[in-house]
C-alpha cells in the first residue's frame, strides 16, 4: 500500500503545484466565474443523472406494482435502459409540422426545461451548501415555477394542432389554479419561519425534538395541499389531463419527436425532483436529521454511524426519494381526474383550506405554540 500512498501524495502535490497556482494567476472575475460554473456542473450532472434514472425507477416501480418486470434487456437488470432511450431519442428526426411556427416550436421545450433547472440555484443542500444564498429565495422559486407554464402554452400554440391547443388550454387553466393554493401554502411556511431564505426556513425547523420540530406537524394541511398541488403543477397523474392519452392523444407535445420531445420529458422529471426537494425543505426540515437534537454528542462522534445519523445532504436526498416514490405510487394507483373535478378540488377545496389554515398559523405563531414557535 506504500506505493499507493506515495502516488496519491505525488498527485496531490502536482495538483497543488500546477492547477492551484495557475488558477490563482487568473484575474479575479474569471476565478469567480469558473467557481460558479463548476458549482453549476456539480448540481446539474447529478440532477440530470437522477432524471434519467427516475424514468427507469418509474418503469420498475410501476412494473412491480402491476406484477410486471419493467425493462430488463439493456444492461444488467435493465440498468442501462435510460442511456439506450437517450441515444435513441438523440438520433431521431425532429419533425416540424406544416404551418407550425418554427422558432416558437423549437424554443418551447427549452422554456419548460429552463425554469425547472434554474430554480435549483437557490436550493440549499446542506447548512452551507447553496449556489446562491439570496434573501428572496422563496419568491424566486415561486416565480420560476409559475414561468414553467410558458413551455406548455407555446408548444401547444406553435404546433398548429387542435389536440395540442386543447392540451395547452387545460394545462394553463390547471397550473394557474393550483399555483394559488401552492403560493398560499408557502405563505404559511413563510409566516412560520419568518424568512424567505430557504436556508433560514430549514434552520427554523431545528430543535430538540428531531423530526417533531419540522413544519409538517403544525402545517399539516398546507403540507398535504402543497404536495398535491405540486403533483398538479407538474402535470403528473392523476392530474395529467394536459397529456390525456386516452382523449387528446398526448396533449401539448403531440407533434414533438426526437430530442425536442425528450426535453419536455426531462423538464417533467426535473420538475418532479424540484417539487420533491421543495417539499422536503419547507415541511420536512431539508438536510436536518430526524434525530437532530435527540442524540448525545458521544453518538455523533462514532466514525460511520455518527455521520449517518447527523444532519447532512444524505437526509435531504432520502427525503427527496420519499416524495419521488409518492409521485410514482400516485401514477400507478389513481385514475385520472376529470377536468371539472380538478377545478373543483383546486378552487373549492384547497384554496379555502389554505386561507383558513393561514389564520391558524398566525394564531399559533402569535401564541408562541411550543415546540415550533416558542423561540419566536
Amino acid at each position, binding site marked *: 500500500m506504500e506505493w499507493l500512498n506515495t502516488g496519491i501524495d505525488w498527485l496531490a502535490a502536482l495538483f497543488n503545484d500546477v492547477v492551484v497556482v495557475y488558477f490563482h494567476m487568473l484575474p479575479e472575475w474569471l476565478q469567480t466565474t469558473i467557481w460558479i460554473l463548476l458549482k453549476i456542473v456539480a448540481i446539474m450532472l447529478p440532477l440530470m443523472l437522477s432524471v434519467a434514472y427516475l424514468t427507469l425507477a418509474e418503469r420498475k416501480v410501476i412494473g412491480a406494482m402491476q406484477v410486471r418486470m419493467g425493462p430488463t434487456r439493456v444492461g444488467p437488470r435493465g440498468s442501462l435502459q435510460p442511456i439506450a432511450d437517450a441515444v435513441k431519442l438523440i438520433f431521431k428526426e425532429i419533425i416540424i409540422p406544416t404551418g407550425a411556427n418554427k422558432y*416558437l416550436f423549437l424554443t418551447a421545450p427549452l422554456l419548460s426545461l429552463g425554469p425547472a433547472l434554474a430554480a435549483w440555484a437557490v436550493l440549499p443542500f446542506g447548512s452551507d451548501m447553496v449556489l446562491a444564498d439570496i434573501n*428572496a429565495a422563496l*419568491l424566486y422559486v*415561486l416565480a420560476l415555477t409559475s414561468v414553467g407554464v410558458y413551455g406548455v402554452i407555446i408548444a401547444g*400554440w406553435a404546433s398548429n394542432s387542435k389536440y395540442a391547443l386543447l392540451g395547452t*388550454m387545460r394545462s*394553463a387553466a390547471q397550473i394557474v389554479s393550483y399555483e394559488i393554493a401552492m403560493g398560499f401554502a408557502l405563505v404559511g411556511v413563510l409566516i412560520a419561519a419568518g424568512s424567505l431564505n430557504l436556508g433560514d426556513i430549514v434552520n427554523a425547523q431545528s430543535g430538540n425534538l428531531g423530526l417533531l420540530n419540522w413544519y409538517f406537524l403544525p402545517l399539516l394541511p398546507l403540507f398535504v395541499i402543497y404536495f398535491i398541488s405540486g403533483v398538479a403543477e407538474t402535470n403528473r397523474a392523476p392530474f395529467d389531463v394536459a397529456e390525456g392519452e386516452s382523449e387528446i392523444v398526448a396533449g401539448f407535445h403531440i407533434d414533438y419527436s426526437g430530442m425536442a420531445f425528450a426535453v419536455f420529458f426531462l423538464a417533467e422529471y426535473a420538475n418532479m425532483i424540484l417539487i420533491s426537494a421543495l417539499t422536503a425543505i419547507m415541511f420536512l426540515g431539508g438536510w436536518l436529521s430526524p434525530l437532530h437534537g435527540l442524540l448525545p454528542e458521544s453518538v455523533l462522534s462514532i466514525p460511520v454511524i455518527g455521520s449517518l445519523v447527523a444532519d447532512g445532504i444524505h437526509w435531504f436526498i432520502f427525503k427527496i426519494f420519499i416524495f419521488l416514490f409518492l409521485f410514482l405510487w400516485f401514477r400507478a394507483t389513481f385514475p385520472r381526474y376529470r377536468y*371539472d373535478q380538478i377545478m373543483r378540488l383546486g378552487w373549492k377545496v384547497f384554496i379555502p383550506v389554505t386561507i383558513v389554515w393561514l389564520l391558524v398559523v398566525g394564531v399559533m405563531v402569535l401564541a408562541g405554540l411550543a415546540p415550533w414557535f416558542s423561540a419566536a
Partner: protein
Amino acid sequence: MGFETIVFYVFAAITVFSGMMVITVKNPVQAALFLVLTFFSTAAIWMLLEAEFLAITLVLVYVGAVMVLFLFVVMMLDINVARMRASFIKHLPLGLVVLALMIGMMLMIVGVDHFGADKFAEPARHAADYNNTRELGLVLYTIYVYPFEIAAVILLVAIVAAIALTLRRRANTKHQKPEQQIAVQRKDRIRMVNMKAEEQK
C-alpha cells in the same frame, strides 16, 4: 465600463426592442409573447436597482399569471389581421393625437427639466444583507397600512363583481353533485341477478 453597466445596457436594449416588437408584429400571440419578454427584461433592470422584491413580483404576477390568462384569451380569438391593417391609415390621425398627448405628459414629468443625474443625489448602495422584501413589508404595514388595506378591499370588490358578471344560472344546465356521488352505495348501482347458464347443445 463596469460589469453592471454592461448588464444594464443589454437588458435595456432587450426591453426597448421587445417593446417595439409588441406593437409592430402582426400576430397577436407573438405580440403577447414579446410583452412577456419586455416584463422579464424590466424585472432584470429592477433587480439591478436592488429592488428584488418588485422584480420577482413582476415576474410572478404579470408573467406567471396575468400574461398566461392574456395568452389564453388571445389564442382563442379569431383576429382578422388583414382587416386590422387595412384601417391603419384611417386611425392614424387619432393615433398621432394620442401619441402627442402621451409624449407631452411624459415630458412634463420626466423631461430634462425635472429628471437627470444632476437633479437627484446618487442613492446609497446597500450592504449585501439588505433585505428589500423586509423593508417594503415594514413600510406597507405601518405607514401605508390604510391605503394598502383599501387597495386590497377594492381588488376584492373587483373580483366579486367580475365573477358576478359572468355568473349566469340557466335552469337546464346539468352538473355533478360530488356529495351525492360520494354517498352512492353499492346497492344503489349493482343488482345481482341469478341466471341460469346457457346450456350446451
